[in-house]
């Protein structure tokens, strides 16, 4: 019994060290249209600190392999806050397959394959049904490499 506990502690400490091998940073921005020096309208992304209902916000997730070892099976998952509506087609990620969940992260699938069952009737899921966005990397994330996942949502 004592031996078992010791092994468990060892595993735990190993895991704690290993967790720092990927660094993940998220930002939230919104588009602001302003007039530049030439008098033209220009759109710029700024940090979203003041957002009104109906406005669009853009989330960017930057993940970096800060270890000396490749990481494989890399999956980024982003739950959507309940007052946010996913903007159809907005999720991007180079070298990644994009999936969604419409049932709080239980089932993930490509947008076209996802269904919702309401009152016993099954229908294709719509962008506003999505509760999670997920990016699945097709290849390994090499040591020192960085990936960027992005999506947009409308504040209800």
């Amino acid at each position, binding site marked *: 019994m004592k031996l078992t506990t010791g092994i468990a502690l060892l595993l735990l400490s190993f895991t704690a060290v*290993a967790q720092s091998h*990927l660094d993940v940073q998220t930002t939230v921005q919104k588009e602001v249209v302003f007039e530049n020096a030439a008098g033209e309208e220009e759109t710029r992304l700024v940090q979203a600190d003041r957002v009104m209902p109906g406005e669009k916000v853009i*989330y960017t997730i930057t993940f970096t392999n800060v270890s000396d070892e490749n990481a494989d099976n890399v999956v980024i998952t982003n739950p959507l806050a309940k007052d946010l509506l996913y903007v159809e087609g907005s999720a991007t990620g180079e070298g990644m397959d994009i999936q969604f969940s419409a049932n709080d992260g239980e089932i993930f699938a490509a947008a076209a394959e996802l269904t919702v069952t309401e009152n016993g009737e099954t229908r294709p899921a719509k962008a506003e049904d999505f509760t999670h966005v997920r990016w699945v990397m097709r290849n390994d994330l090499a040591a020192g490499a960085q990936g960027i996942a992005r999506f947009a949502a409308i*504040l209800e």
Partner: protein
Amino acid sequence: MESASRFLAPVANLLLGASMLCAICVLPGTASAAGTAVGTLIENTASVDFTQLGVQQSTNSNTVSFVVAERIDVVVTLRSGQVAVLPGATAQALLFTVTNTGNGTEAVGLAIDSLLVGDDFDPIPALPDSIFFDTDNSGDFNVGDVAYAAGVNDPVLAADESIDVLLVNDIPGTVADGNLARSELRATAATGSGAPGTVFAGQGDAGVDAVIGTTGATAAVFGEYVVDDVTINIVKSQVVSDPMGGTEPVVGATISYTISVEVVSAGTAAAATINDVIPTWSTFVPNSITLNGTTFTDATDGDAGEYDLTGAPAVVVRLGDLTQADGLQSIVFQVTIE
């Protein structure tokens, strides 16, 4: 030990589910037609699962958040149709609804404008007050309705809340039949109004920034009065036929009533209806109602007349929109003396 861990497994899954839910937790959000409530904190955390050296691992991103700002929007809708008025009529009301379509609480200032262009005459805002709240929710202007005083009792509306407002005008005595007059209600958010996107820093609910929405935080809608100065002549006559072939009003005698209706001026008597309660000492003769010689059934059905027993027994005939061109309308029905 093995059975214990089997028992524990579902619990661990449950906890994982709960922590994922926590990543999307939002306080104190309540979405509505007006949008997410002012001050709601919207948080976002991504997680990454990966495998390194054969060990499955997971890590979370930083949590980013923003606060929902106040969007100030005001909408005014006209509730009454064209209000028919007589020359010289006083205290004629138009009903409006003012709605806060923003996502925060706003005080709203109200103003009346009866000097609009595009009409035939200007109605005169009633004195001393011309803007009233429809306090009794009747849709009409009544004694109990409270007068509005700018800056004193500006209505304070929560997100999505609305209030009914009456504009009360007098009609000049010199106007002619068919003349139109307009009177406008303007509602403006007290925090400010102007170009959509204008920011009032720190002036929203609980000190968040307030931003002017697409309505410009001000709205104005006018209602219309139409002068309906129609003169109608109504004459009622009777012919008594007693059982002996005479004209004595004795028990058992029949009285044939004739009601003649005629518009004798310009204008339209809209939805003119004759409602004549029969004498209490009489009995209605079934199927005796005629209009210009056409008989109506007694039942309330598809035709334009009936013997109505819902209140005091009465003969009801609907003449429609009546003008001088329609000429004399003659309604006849019979009763017997009890």
